[in-house]
């Protein structure tokens, strides 16, 4: 069916059959066994609207940038003044640690919840389901407000048998420390999402892997640790990277607790005094962008590390990669990777 059509296409090209000196219908296939097939010389399909749209977008962007550069409300001198302000960089540090601690907590609790949901025990399953239902079903802002006032509901922690004199009584110092409250609030919420990611990862590992490991007399724990989890990581890492980036930005909601020593909280605090909200929003955004950019680079290296043996990565001196990847994430604005993205700041 396609044969005559392609012939027609070539014939319709003016002058071409004359130049090659033979009719295309007879020529191809039989006599050209040695010579490479002739290339099709055709006028490519034009896409004029694509170009028009592209030009319009670039023009629009240029107008916006030129206008913004001159508009006083953006307060560019203030951006320059506050971008490396000590209060801002310290607040950025707080945001970074809020993210790190919350994510560590979320991953640990998430792993536990995922294993509970996959367990044959119906009680464990239901509890995990209930947890996820509640923490994923209510807004994180509302949860943070709740954790902020939890020290009023439970002024003291007691340990003992109900209706009897408690053995131990500790004043509630956990929830009066706002930083710890923020970490707990963020971690408990994020754990619900992490558990689903971990569960998907564990389920993605072929059943035969667990069987082979069991047949080798390895225990359930060993099977998980050495066989299933390392393979599940390949599925778990990319969405977890997204969650880390998302968490970095969600930390700005700790204002609900109310904790105000994080990046957004401090920039708001400064702008409340100087009456320059826009420059400080830009400053905060640039710091958030810097961190998310660094996290993206770190994620790239970790993904590479865990795709070993899948054929996508050449085997070789792999152990070298976790080094730079590991330092890139907690290292913050360090010279080698930081400078690439620091240009934005």
């Amino acid at each position, binding site marked *: 069916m396609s044969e005559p059509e392609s012939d027609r296409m070539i014939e319709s090209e003016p002058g071409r059959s004359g130049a090659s000196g033979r009719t295309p219908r007879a020529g191809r296939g039989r006599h050209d066994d040695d010579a490479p097939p002739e290339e099709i010389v055709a006028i490519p399909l034009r896409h004029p609207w694509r170009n028009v749209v592209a030009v319009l977008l670039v023009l629009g962007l240029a107008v916006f940038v030129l206008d913004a550069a001159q508009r006083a409300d953006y307060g560019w001198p203030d951006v320059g003044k506050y971008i490396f302000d000590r209060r801002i960089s310290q607040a950025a540090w707080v945001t970074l640690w809020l993210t790190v601690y919350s994510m560590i907590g979320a991953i640990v609790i998430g792993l536990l919840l995922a294993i509970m949901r996959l367990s044959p025990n119906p009680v464990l399953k239901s509890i995990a389901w209930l947890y996820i239902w509640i923490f994923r079903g209510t807004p994180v802002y509302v949860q943070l407000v709740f954790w902020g006032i939890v020290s009023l509901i439970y002024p003291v922690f007691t340990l003992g048998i109900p209706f009897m004199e408690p053995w131990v009584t500790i004043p509630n110092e956990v929830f009066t420390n706002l930083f710890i409250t923020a970490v707990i609030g963020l971690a408990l919420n994020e754990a619900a999402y992490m558990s689903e990611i971990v569960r998907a990862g564990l389920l993605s590992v072929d059943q035969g892997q667990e069987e082979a490991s069991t047949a080798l007399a390895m225990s359930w724990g060993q099977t998980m640790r050495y066989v299933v989890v390392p393979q599940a990581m390949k599925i778990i890492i990319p969405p977890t990277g997204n969650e880390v980036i998302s968490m970095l930005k969600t930390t700005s909601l700790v204002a609900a607790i109310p904790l105000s020593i994080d990046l957004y909280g401090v920039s708001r605090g400064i702008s409340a005094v100087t009456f320059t909200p826009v420059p400080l929003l830009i400053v905060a955004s640039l710091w958030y962008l810097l961190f998310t950019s660094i996290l993206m680079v770190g994620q790239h290296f970790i993904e590479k590390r865990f795709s070993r*043996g899948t054929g996508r990565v050449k*085997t070789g001196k792999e152990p070298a990669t976790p080094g730079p990847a590991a330092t890139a994430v907690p290292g913050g604005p360090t010279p080698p990777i930081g400078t690439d993205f620091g240009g934005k700041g």
Partner: protein
Amino acid sequence: MTDAPMVLAERVSKNFGTNKVLRGISLEVDPGEVLCIVGPSGSGKSTFLRCINHLERVDGGRLSVDGQLVGYRQKGDKLYELKLKEAAFQRQEIGMVFQRFNLFPHLTAVENIILAPMRVKGISKAKATARAMELLERVGLGDKGDAYPAHLSGGQQQRVAIARALAMDPKLMLFDEPTSALDPELVGEVLDVMKELAKSGMTMIVVTHEMGFAREVADTLVFMDEGVVVEAGPPREILSNPQHDRTRTFLSKVL
């Protein structure tokens, strides 16, 4: 107890829900014997094999390996299900090779082989690695130690899987259709390794469709259909002079 059978099955039965997969399998495998099981798909061959190392629970009858009841402990006239740890301990003596190899894709060939000896038996990495290299040499892959499974052909993967099972020094090897997932030209290299293993005196139970292999290597050939042993005996006799209609029908299709 030198003459005790390595595997003794007495009316072993297994159900998946209402589906009776095994309806009373009785057979004996002596130490050093090679037993081949053939039969149409769905006849319960693989399930029986998986019962032997307790990947599936036996529902009825008695199944013992090397004089020990599989999956249960008898105390007086009561049976107790084994703890997971005890079941794992029993499996140390039984190696298994799967149809789809089931190598661990994130580990190299050597790492695949040394994992269980190190974690289960507590053998040092140096010792386990030396042994792994010996085993790889034995299956003809001495130069592939550092290769990941994805970079090996199916036949090579299956030979690594055999080496991995052998690394636990099993007394009994189970093969679940070890060549069914292979390209035809790769079947020979795996069968050669298995032949060598049989010659070395290993007790083996092989579920297979390779009639040539069964004829040449097996001491006993078992034909299973619909969860029962239809016919068992020396392979030449069964292949050339089957006694049952079902065996004849099956053989006429595969030979």
